[in-house]
């Protein structure tokens, strides 16, 4: 058991690291200010990825706020009904819809976004439309992971809180969330990872523009879209695609570390 599990962890890490070798090889050239802030030239084969990095931060930051802003209440809403989830038809419908969405190809989200957010809501090719589309795409994943985390918290909290006459708000915010903050951190991080690695959904919503976006209604090419374009449409773009992918990974790593520290601090602060 011990050797089998350690072996599979090792196998996975070996696969993952060898997958990243081409990107890691670009490390010296990637962490250079000219590249990180510069504007791309020759179809991305030269120059920097400044605008893409900025667009990615804007799109994913906004998307995460919307995902957590809507996903956490949705998970709490499902958790409130607790053990009656199985019977309560509305909750079962919600969980069903969540699973359906998880199975939908991201290109369908891109099309939905381009019609609903870009055309009907009139946002056009814009950062906001891209962020909204990403939010709708990662919402099911986040809500589901948050709900799983909440259901892993001790079941006895609920009658205990009721016996002390605690309201639903206090029970949820001051007891439930602090007791499962690790699961919630994992949910936030996985949702961020899913969103930041998404290209197809943004291609039709946030768009392809490589200039610095001046406002949330400007089109901005996100990093994954840039990576996809370099790898798929630009001949000789592989090396630059891997370099951009490395920057994206560094971005995700920074986010993971910050998220853990932030949540640890909050949890510590929360219990006093």
């Amino acid at each position: 058991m011990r050797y089998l599990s350690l072996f599979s962890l090792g196998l996975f890490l070996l696969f993952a690291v060898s997958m990243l070798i081409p990107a890691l090889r670009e490390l010296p050239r990637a962490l250079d200010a000219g590249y990180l802030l510069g504007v791309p030239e020759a179809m991305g084969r030269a120059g920097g990825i400044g605008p893409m990095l900025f667009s990615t931060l804007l799109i994913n930051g906004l998307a995460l706020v919307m995902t957590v802003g809507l996903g956490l209440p949705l998970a709490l809403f499902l958790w409130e009904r607790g053990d009656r989830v199985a019977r309560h038809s509305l909750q079962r419908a919600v969980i069903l819809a969540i699973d359906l969405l998880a199975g939908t190809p991201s290109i369908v989200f891109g099309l939905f976004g381009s019609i609903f957010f870009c055309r009907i809501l009139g946002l056009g090719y814009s950062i906001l439309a891209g962020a909204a589309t990403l939010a709708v795409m990662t919402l099911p994943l986040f809500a589901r992971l948050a709900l799983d985390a909440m259901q892993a918290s001790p079941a006895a909290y609920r009658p205990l809180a009721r016996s002390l006459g605690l309201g639903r708000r206090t029970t949820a915010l001051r007891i439930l969330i602090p007791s499962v903050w690790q699961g919630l951190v994992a949910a936030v991080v996985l949702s961020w990872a899913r969103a930041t690695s998404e290209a197809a959904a943004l291609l039709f919503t946030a768009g392809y523009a490589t200039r610095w976006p001046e406002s949330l209604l400007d089109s901005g090419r996100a990093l994954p879209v840039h990576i996809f374009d370099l790898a798929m449409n630009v001949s000789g773009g592989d090396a630059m695609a891997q370099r951009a992918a490395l920057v994206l990974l560094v971005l995700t790593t920074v986010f993971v570390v910050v998220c853990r520290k932030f949540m640890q601090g909050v949890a510590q602060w929360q219990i006093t």
Partner: protein
Amino acid sequence: MADYLSRLSVRGLGVHYGRRCAVRNVSLEFSGPGITALVGPSGAGKSSLLLACAGLMGDVPGARVDGEVDPGDSGVGIVFQQPLAFPLSIAMNVGLALRERGRSATDVDARVALALQQAGLWTEVKDRLRESATRLSGGQLQRLCIARSLALAPSFLLLDEPCSSLDPMSAKVVENTLRELSGSIHIVIVTHNLAQARRLSNRMIVLWDTDGGGSQVLADGPTETMFREPPHELVKLYLDGQLG
């Protein structure tokens, strides 16, 4: 604590889990300071009766309650068998309910200190109130749960086998705490430890499911007379430790 004679009356209480009837047509009165021991064979619905008295049956899936539990306007606190701390600090564990009711910080701190004193935990934790409560020992945790209920100044405190998961030393401390509290509030304690019941309680109620149709009150009276002249054959055997 309670400055006038509060009364918790139970009239014709029935608790049903689906088709099975746990408690059938129980009527009881609890009033004034003192300790009542609720005993009977395991599975006789003692915990269901306790939960019903605390008004928590709504939470239990598939449970149906009829009859009436009237606590008047006095508070009923309950301490569950498995001691469980909120993932909060010691002070916050005890004071959360009060803070939610919008009491001022100083008022809450005073009440928390008072509750911890009454639960006999104050001396051990008074300089680490900000620490997480999950690091307390078994006995301390149980007394924290008691303090948590006491913070709401209930007139009745129901405890479901409070010492079952404690070492003898901690059990003794909890028993002394309960004995002191019984001077001001009414305590109902569910227990299998007959020696403990004899030591602590001044009144004993024996709950028994004689005909399989749900438990009823087999005997109810002062503890000493219950031990010296058991009013019922089953009670005599039970108290001698042969049954249940």
